[in-house]
């Protein structure tokens, strides 16, 4: 059989850049295959995708070398329009690509542009809507849909054309875990029934592997680092070496000192033959110390039976009570519309609770204005672009103090101290535009931190971030938490974040607080994960398969073990850094 996509000695360099983004790519993908392309950010995996759908070199110009054939066409000659008939692309931004005013019109969009007559259009839209299970929502507007539903509409929008190839660019980036699982299942079903070739670009490897893929192509530094069957790849150390997250159960088995054999099918924990590893995992579990429990500090923020509704009939939050202690790192989780953002808005004073009280250090904050609360409670929005309002870093960070009329020299001192804490001091006179996304995020955090808040609330701090940026941001926050004892509350739907970085999680479902416990306990509790659209961690399945009774304890020991490894690495890096500096000085 001939490949449907073939890269031959293919290289590409963006016009504005000096270095090539792709080097000597040789890759064959055959009709009907399902391929996962994984790689850290900046690895070239998105560039690879843009080559396949023709955006490169038609919209993003640059120099190419070698050859690329996609479904018998040369993208360069066929153009973006020509390619769109054969390759359907689903982007990660669920709002940006939903163009129509209703579900039906959005699915019909490509047909309209192709001058398809209306009666044929109705038929094809109905069929596509059925495939993506949106038939009952044809006249809904995007505002009435969840992120997962919008993504299904986008998928429907490319399925109306009988494309040969479906290309998904980070399909899980904006979805809660349950919706992500449904998306992966739907992609798999469509791949089977429609006999299309599927390419998924993602770094959440464990989540994609919820259903089988044929091969995983690992891209890094513009080159293909590996092209293997999942079972083979997971038996190697390539993923962690290239800066990506392995499935947690795979990492756990490796920590236990066992080498994984591809014949045991490590692709899915449910079907994996765990028997050969049971002894090692159990031993590791016995020997790994449980994490030390934190001493209880005084209560900083307290919600006392808080309820809220935009109208009296529809309650967004009902009788929510919890306490957050000084120096804690707490996550707030739950599906879209469960009331997470509303809770943050109530704490910041954008709305007032219809009943109940919110207390900060024991004082009811109801009488405080938004601005007054802003001095004690810092809110960081999801995207730094929603917050940055000055072109220069120094101006941006000082803004909150300037408008409060703080004296000039005090501003300078506080801004410089904050910039040092955030690792931005050496760039203080740079324009914001020169920064990476992660650095911009730090600027937006610094601009809040400069006001010395008691507690920092972050809305989806890692949404749309890959593993490296994610780790960079989260390590930074953890560092703040440890070094200056900052209390941090994070709204998230990222299970890794919750498990690895927070001490405690509040779980909301339909406006009710249904759990308030350690993340390890929550993510191994089937009842809670089901009700809140979370996903049980695969560590739970591993623990069960190894006859370890207390799955939550297993998960929390795993996390604290990982933590120790990472801290050791970091200290070692700092040591070498210091040593290098010392050497420089000696010279």
């Amino acid at each position, binding site marked *: 059989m001939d490949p449907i996509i073939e890269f031959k000695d293919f290289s590409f360099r963006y016009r504005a850049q000096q270095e090539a983004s792709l080097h000597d790519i040789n890759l064959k993908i055959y009709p009907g295959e399902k391929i996962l392309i994984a790689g850290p950010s900046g690895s070239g995996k998105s560039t690879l995708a843009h080559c396949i*759908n023709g*955006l490169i070199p038609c*919209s993003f110009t640059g120099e190419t070398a070698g050859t690329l054939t996609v479904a018998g066409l040369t993208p360069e000659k066929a153009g*973006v*329009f020509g390619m*769109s*008939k054969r390759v359907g*692309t689903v*982007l990660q*931004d669920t*709002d*940006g*690509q939903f*163009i*129509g*005013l*209703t579900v*039906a*019109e959005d699915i*019909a*969009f*490509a*047909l*309209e*542009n*192709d*001058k*398809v*007559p*209306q009666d044929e*259009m109705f038929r094809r*839209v109905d069929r596509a809507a059925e495939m993506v299970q949106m038939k009952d929502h044809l*006249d809904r507007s*995007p*505002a009435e849909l969840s992120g997962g539903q919008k993504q299904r509409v986008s998928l429907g929008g*490319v399925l109306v054309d009988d494309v040969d190839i479906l290309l998904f660019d980070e399909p899980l980036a904006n979805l809660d875990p349950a919706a992500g699982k449904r998306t992966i299942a739907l992609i798999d079903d469509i791949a089977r029934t429609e006999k299309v070739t599927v390419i998924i670009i993602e770094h959440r490897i464990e989540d994609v592997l919820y259903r089988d893929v044929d091969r995983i192509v690992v891209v890094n530094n513009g080159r293909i680092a590996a092209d293997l069957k999942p079972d083979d790849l997971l038996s190697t150390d390539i993923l962690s070496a290239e800066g990506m997250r392995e499935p947690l159960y795979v990492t756990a088995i490796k920590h236990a000192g066992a080498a994984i054999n591809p014949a045991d099918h490590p692709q899915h924990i449910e079907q994996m033959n765990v028997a050969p590893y049971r002894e090692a995992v159990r031993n590791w579990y016995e020997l790994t110390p449980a994490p030390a429990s934190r001493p209880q500090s005084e209560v900083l923020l307290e919600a006392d039976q808080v309820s809220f509704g935009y109208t009296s009939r529809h309650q967004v939050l009902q009788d929510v009570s919890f306490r957050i202690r000084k120096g804690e790192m707490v996550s707030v989780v739950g599906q879209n519309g469960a009331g997470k953002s509303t809770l943050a*808005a109530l704490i*910041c*004073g*954008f709305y007032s609770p219809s009943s109940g009280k919110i207390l900060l250090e024991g004082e009811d904050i109801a009488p405080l204005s*938004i*601005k007054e609360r*802003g001095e004690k*409670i*810092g*809110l960081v*929005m999801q*995207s730094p*672009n*929603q*917050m*940055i*309002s*000055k072109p220069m870093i120094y101006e941006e960070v000082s*803004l*909150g103090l300037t*408008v*409060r009329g703080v004296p000039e020299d005090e501003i300078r001192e506080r801004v410089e101290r904050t910039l040092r804490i955030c690792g931005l001091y050496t760039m203080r006179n740079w324009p914001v535009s020169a920064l990476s996304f992660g650095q911009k995020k730090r600027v937006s955090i610094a*601009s*809040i931190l400069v006001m010395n808040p008691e507690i920092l609330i972050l809305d989806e701090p890692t949404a749309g971030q890959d593993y490296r940026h994610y780790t960079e941001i989260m390590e930074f926050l953890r560092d703040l938490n440890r070094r200056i004892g900052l209390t941090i509350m994070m709204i998230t739907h990222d299970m890794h974040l919750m498990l690895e970085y927070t001490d405690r999680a509040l779980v909301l479902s339909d406006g009710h607080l249904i759990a308030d416990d350690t993340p390890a306990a929550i993510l191994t509790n089937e009842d809670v994960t089901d009700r809140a659209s979370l996903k049980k961690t695969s560590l739970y399945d591993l623990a069960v398969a190894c006859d370890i009774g207390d799955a939550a304890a297993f998960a929390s020991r795993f996390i604290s073990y990982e933590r120790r490894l990472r801290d050791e690495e970091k200290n070692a890096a700092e040591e070498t850094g210091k040593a290098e500096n010392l050497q420089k000085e000696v010279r």
Partner: protein
Amino acid sequence: MAKLLSYEENDTWIHRLSGITKLMFFLMWCALSAMTYDTRVLLVMILISLIAFAVSKTKWQQVGSVFKVIMAFMILNLAAIFVMSPEQGCAIYGTRKVLFHIAGNYDMTRDQLFYMFNVMIKYFTVIPAVFIFLVTTNPSELAASMNRVGIPYTIAYSLSIALRYIPDVQGDFHRIRNAQEARGIEMSAKAKLFERIRRTASIIFPLLFSSMERIDVVSNAMELRGFGKYKKRTWYAMKPLRRADYLVLAGTLIFVICALLVTYADGSRFWAYWL
């Protein structure tokens, strides 16, 4: 949060009319209301508007808050006319009959009062038409029918995109404004004008920046799905013009012509009961 007027689905014969029929009616109605100062014509127009309003089953809750805003604006405008030009009515009608004296140069004349009454009822001829148009017209179908009467589909589609993204941009705006307010950047603060503009800049800039990003994302998504490939396109939401559409269009046209004939019968568009 400001409540915007928006399309609400229903099934009356006004809803079933094509968007272009309602747009043409709306534009002709606005033009006629702007041109005529014939009180008889204006009163008939109000009557027709109110009947149409009732037939469209538009509810007061859908439009009430906006109605209050426009009333306030109208009263201010009338006050401004009187304060600045108390003799405008006399100049228009060429007569002057003092009802009572107010103060200084200000007399309340029959002519001014009648002129201002006409200005006022002009508002009432248009308001129901705006409400009906916005509340009963499906925006996608409107874009489709605008394209059919010769407006380039790129422009028609721009309108569709505007209506699609108004709620998203509004949500972004409120979130950004709240977050900036928590940082201490308020627009309502009592500050000097220049300072207030600078603070507004701090709130608008992130919104503008994210909107520019949105323009890139949406353009890419549209290009990937073949927008602009041909000189023409078809529309999912297109509705054929039916008999009712032609009847309404013809009826409106006849009414407008008759109304203009009546208005300009004596060579002037102003009519007063005493002339």
